[in-house]
């Protein structure tokens, strides 16, 4: 195998297809809107934003050599619009209230354990606390019956990855073709790639993949 940190789809940028028949007018409008998400809190308070941003950075750590997907901003926009799955399970509050309670509880747990809010922990401490949430090992009084494990599974691990993988940067990283209307695809068989799909760098063929990915229009 090659260098594991080398990009799987070198040079592939799904946005290069913006003006091709793979993107119709409504798709351009929707993606433009997502890329222009305001980078400041509109739903969250400043301290909620700080905690949410720190959680996002551990759930989806991003490489330093490209602009990050603005996860806290996308989460804030989602909560501002209040567009989610709608239902609440058992004793869980609805989405907005769950996030407000959950972020406060994370800081309260962090303060009780380490004497500092979550954003002030180092990344290993943050990961340890998130791991305890995931395994159901937090049962402080801060969770109001919601349950740290439920909050982790139903909100953190549902909302944050969902937002990351709604962003063209994530599509480029994983080699997803992205929008495909109206052009669609024609090479359906195993191992076949349409010229407007991402080319994967296989050992020895990295240069060719890079060249192909410059022409995915």
């Amino acid at each position: 195998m090659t260098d594991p940190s080398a990009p799987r789809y070198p040079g592939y940028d799904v946005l290069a297809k913006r003006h091709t028949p793979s993107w119709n007018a409504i798709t351009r409008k929707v993606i433009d809107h997502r890329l222009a998400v305001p980078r400041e809190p509109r739903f969250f308070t400043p301290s909620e934003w700080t905690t949410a941003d720190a959680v996002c950075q551990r759930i989806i750590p991003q490489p330093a050599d490209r602009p990050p997907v603005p996860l806290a901003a996308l989460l804030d926009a989602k909560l501002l619009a209040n567009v989610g799955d709608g239902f609440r399970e058992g004793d869980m509050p609805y989405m907005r209230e769950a996030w407000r309670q959950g972020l406060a509880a994370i800081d309260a747990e962090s303060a009780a354990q380490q004497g500092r809010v979550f954003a002030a922990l180092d990344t290993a401490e943050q990961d340890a606390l998130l791991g305890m949430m995931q395994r159901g090992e937090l049962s402080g009084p801060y969770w109001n019956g919601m349950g740290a494990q439920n909050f982790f599974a139903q909100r953190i691990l549902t909302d944050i990855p969902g937002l990351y993988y709604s962003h063209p940067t994530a599509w480029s990283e994983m080699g997803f073709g992205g929008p495909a209307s109206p052009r669609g695809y024609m090479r359906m068989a195993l191992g076949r790639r349409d010229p407007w799909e991402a080319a994967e760098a296989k050992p020895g063929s990295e240069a060719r993949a890079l060249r192909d990915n410059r022409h995915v229009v």
Partner: protein
Amino acid sequence: MSSDPFEAPRASHGRAPDVFATGGWVPMRAYREQDEVDFAIVGTGAGGGTLAALLAEQGFSVVAFDAGPYFRPLEDFASDEAEQNKLYWTDKRVTDGANPIRMGGKNSGKAVGGSTVHYAMVSLRFRPEWFTSRSTLGYGADWPIPWQEMWHWYGEAEQQIGIAGPITYPWGPKRPRYPYRAHELNSAARLLARGCEAIGIGWTETPLATLSAPHGKSSPCMYRGFCRFGCSTNAKRSALTVWIPRALAAGAEVRDLAMVGRIETGPDGRASGVHYQREDAWRFQRARNVVVAGYAVETPRLLLNSANQRYPDGLANSSGLVGKNLMTQSNQAVWGRMEEEVRWNKGPPSLAITEHWNYDDNKDFFGGYCWMGQGPLPIEWAAVQTGSRGLWGEALRDAMLHYNHMIGVKMVGEMLPDEANRVTLSNDLDQYGLRVARITYTWGENDKALIQHALVQMGRSIEAIGATDMFRQEDDTNHLGGTARMGADPARSVVNADCRSWDIPNLWVCDGSVFPTVGGVNPSLTIQTIAMRTASRIGILARRGEL
């Protein structure tokens, strides 16, 4: 740019959106609220949309209500996974039980056309014995309709919808050839076929409600792969593109962004019309008949929310069964990685199927299941990684890099009816001020045994073709049914074979709620088939003066 379909109703002032043209309109007949229309239909999906067209074509006056917006696919459907959340019913609901059902895209729709706007188009017939599952197979409840009659209407539905499917279907009694040729198999489907052959079971091309050749104003499928969302090229044969245009042409009126909150009954105990909210005001439409077609959660919710002095337990509920026997379908999967590039997102996700275990009774549990190939888009695929493997951090991003090499097979499995699984009313209120549904669900022992069997068989099939890093998705469900079941006995069912309620003769239910059992196949074709039969029966009853 056109108007926002959520902001204000589009179907009004004698016109409705033309779903086949950007910015287009078609004429629509408008009824006055004081007109006593023949049928007020609540919901415009597989049940209500079909019925609206077929009743209007028989000359009945019809007004069909939908709580959701009226989309024009060509201009409103972005090729984007997150944006398409707008097609789902995401109003407040409460879920509980030992296995709470996740509500959303897999089991709801809020749009003219209902969930058929975003369904995966899989159009399967029930196995004949399922219509007598109690008396023939020993579980569940019998349907009050003979399978031969259902198979006649299946054939009609397949022709009128324009299903693309195989020349010869491997399971069940002989059926006519599908009207449109089967689609080309994508690599995910070819691998499913290879896996089935490796373990010695049959497979076939999945009958799909997406065009493989031009039809009217619709073009054939372009294999975009955004198929569990709104189809932006109109290849998908949904209620929005098949039945609603026919309904309008035949003189029906469709009211979008119109949420029905209560059915009124008169001094004679019969339904007299519906209260609905549109443009921030509550209104009342008089009707000689009311049809509820809101699917297995909203239908019982409306019947229960319509309780009044005469019917304190809700309408059509003398049996006590409204809301009970809720069924979902098991939707577990096995996933794995292939050495070759699969690129599973190209084309409809379920191009190949095996129904082997629906027709093989050599099992130690009741019911059956099918499985189909998969091609989840990134958000859904990430949810599988987080939900089934608990991945996050670098581990999640690394796992997602294998996207173009993944395969998966996913079941649609039969779950058995149980009165404890049910829809009741919560004290939470929604944006209309109405009590929301509480949805309670717990898997039974038979359900669990069926799921385990399927996970083993599915795993065998992809292991046999060289999948590596396999893992199971053990906690997923999809379609719904059962909360207003049909039957032959008024004490043990809510409606009769004609979808007519036993208690109130001019109140009907026509959607997946009426299913006594859900079988191991996707329900949309059966819902449309039931609606076609019901429309025919209503015509016969009207001619006899028995409406």
